[in-house]
């Protein structure tokens, strides 16, 4: 499956189901019994169906765009996502949340189709609640990474159209992140990005964080938390210059104030003093971790 179902290009023999104006096309189709001429004002490919037969099609997927990035440091992980919900050339919403704070130590960010993102996030949140109730502790980063992979593969033959990035601090307090494809293939790394501007952001991160293609003999400097946050903001503002599905600067003619545009989702750290970046996204009612359950004796009456 072409991962980028671009409007008008996924099935050239059918009218674009996902672009603007498709409703008109479907109306005309049903009225004219299957034949549609292209006109000057409606630049769609020629449609030539069997006379009288209507082409039914079920298009379960949409690409709502978006990009997500995670950069991990020594004891923190920055997970960021842009906020544009796109549909073809339209922007149904300027401010959409692509993130899910799973617990103190793990954050998930998801690009792709927003409906699948919402559902995936709901499923994972419930699964994490169940884990916490059954095991008496929060799920660790490694455990969540495997859970997400399994959840995605479970729908191998009707996938969640989602591109995920999981970031957090592991059990030793070291920052790590995981990048996923739509069916659950994942890898533990320090830096990952995915979504519509993956090809634009990834080289920047490779260069700035990993020092790739730098031949000046300088060792790669480890980035501090503040530097990482600035880098991530810069990545998005640069990607937004060329990718219509990712927003980097707002369109009001204001000077580039990155902090207003990006929804800097969450900055996780095991360092107690870094809390100024932490924004509490805890879903209302989410309770603190239950203490380890005591061993229960086999008492018949209690």
């Amino acid at each position: 499956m072409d991962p980028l179902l671009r409007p008008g290009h996924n099935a050239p023999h059918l009218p674009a189901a996902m672009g603007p104006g498709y409703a008109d096309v479907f109306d005309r189709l049903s009225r004219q019994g299957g034949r549609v001429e292209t006109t000057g004002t409606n630049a769609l490919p020629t449609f030539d169906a069997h006379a009288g037969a209507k082409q039914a099609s079920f298009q379960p997927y949409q690409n709502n765009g978006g990009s997500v990035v995670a950069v991990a440091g020594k004891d923190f992980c920055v997970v960021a996502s842009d906020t544009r919900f796109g549909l073809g050339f339209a922007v149904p919403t300027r401010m959409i949340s692509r993130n899910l704070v799973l617990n103190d130590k793990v954050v998930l960010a998801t690009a792709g189709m927003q409906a699948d993102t919402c559902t995936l996030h709901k499923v994972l949140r419930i699964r994490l609640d169940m884990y916490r109730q059954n095991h008496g502790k929060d799920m660790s980063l490694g455990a969540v990474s495997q859970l997400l992979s399994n959840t995605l593969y479970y729908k191998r033959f009707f996938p969640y159209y989602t591109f995920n990035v999981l970031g957090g601090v592991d059990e030793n307090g070291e920052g790590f992140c995981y990048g996923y494809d739509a069916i659950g293939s994942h890898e533990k790394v320090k830096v990952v990005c995915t979504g519509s501007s993956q090809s634009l952001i990834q080289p920047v991160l490779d260069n700035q964080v990993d020092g790739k293609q730098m031949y000046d003999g300088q060792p790669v400097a480890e980035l501090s938390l503040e530097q990482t946050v600035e880098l991530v903001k810069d990545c998005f503002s640069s990607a937004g210059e060329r990718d219509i599905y990712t927003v980097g600067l707002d369109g009001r003619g204001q000077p580039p104030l990155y902090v207003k545009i990006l929804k800097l989702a969450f900055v996780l750290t095991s360092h107690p003093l870094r809390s100024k970046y932490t924004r509490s996204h805890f879903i209302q009612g989410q309770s603190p971790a239950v203490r380890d359950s005591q061993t229960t004796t086999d008492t018949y009456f209690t």
Partner: protein
Amino acid sequence: MFRNQYDTDITTYSPQGRVHQIEYAMEAVKQGSAVVGLRSATHVVLATLKRSSSELASNQRKLFEIDSHVGIAIAGLTADARVLTRFMRAECHNHQYVYETPMPLSRLVLAVADKSQVATQRASKRPFGVGLLVAGYDTTGAHLYQTCPSGNYFEYEAFAIGARSQSAKTYLEKHFESFAALSLEELCRHAILALQETVASSKDTELTTRNTALAFVGRDTPWTMVEDDSVEEYLLVLDAEDELEEGDADAARQQPQQPPAAMDES
């Protein structure tokens, strides 16, 4: 309780119109150690006495989280309680998934009651031998419910179930009218004092951090359990009460001899 020829089967009524098996199941609840629940307008508190089978054993836990806005205290067969806990958690999760809101308490308790009732009307089943005090906070406020093996459920301002719970209920009856306006701290104080009434005449002579556990939930307060050493600060109210009583006793001794009061008003 007496044995008779109508009590072997859940599907048999006695000539007096009773189903004895249900009553025997409720007897199992009365055998469990005491749990106390009370509520104000904004919070609900549950206090439990944890029994242990021996010095070597741990004390059986009686408080369980169902969701971040609901929790239960149990009295009776622990194994049956585990099944109900799992059921309630699943119900809350499903409701949250479908409706994206916390499950209203009345519906949750109704689901438990209906499930319990089924077990009283099938020949192949037996009633659940556990009573629950369900405490929670939803959009309609703070609530405390009791569920029975019979499939009945009741809402209370304050209640107690288990062994010697009548003493706790007597204490609660005296004070419950003031509960609605109390703060969480004061509510916990009453819970501990009510629970203490149930140990006065048993072999657990006092409440300790080992045998007492407390939990509360309410507005802006997700379900929080207080166990082991954290209970210590809540038990201090008992020392304060003791000092108060000792102070009165000292004062009485230092007073010149007076005829005793007509009634003990302490």
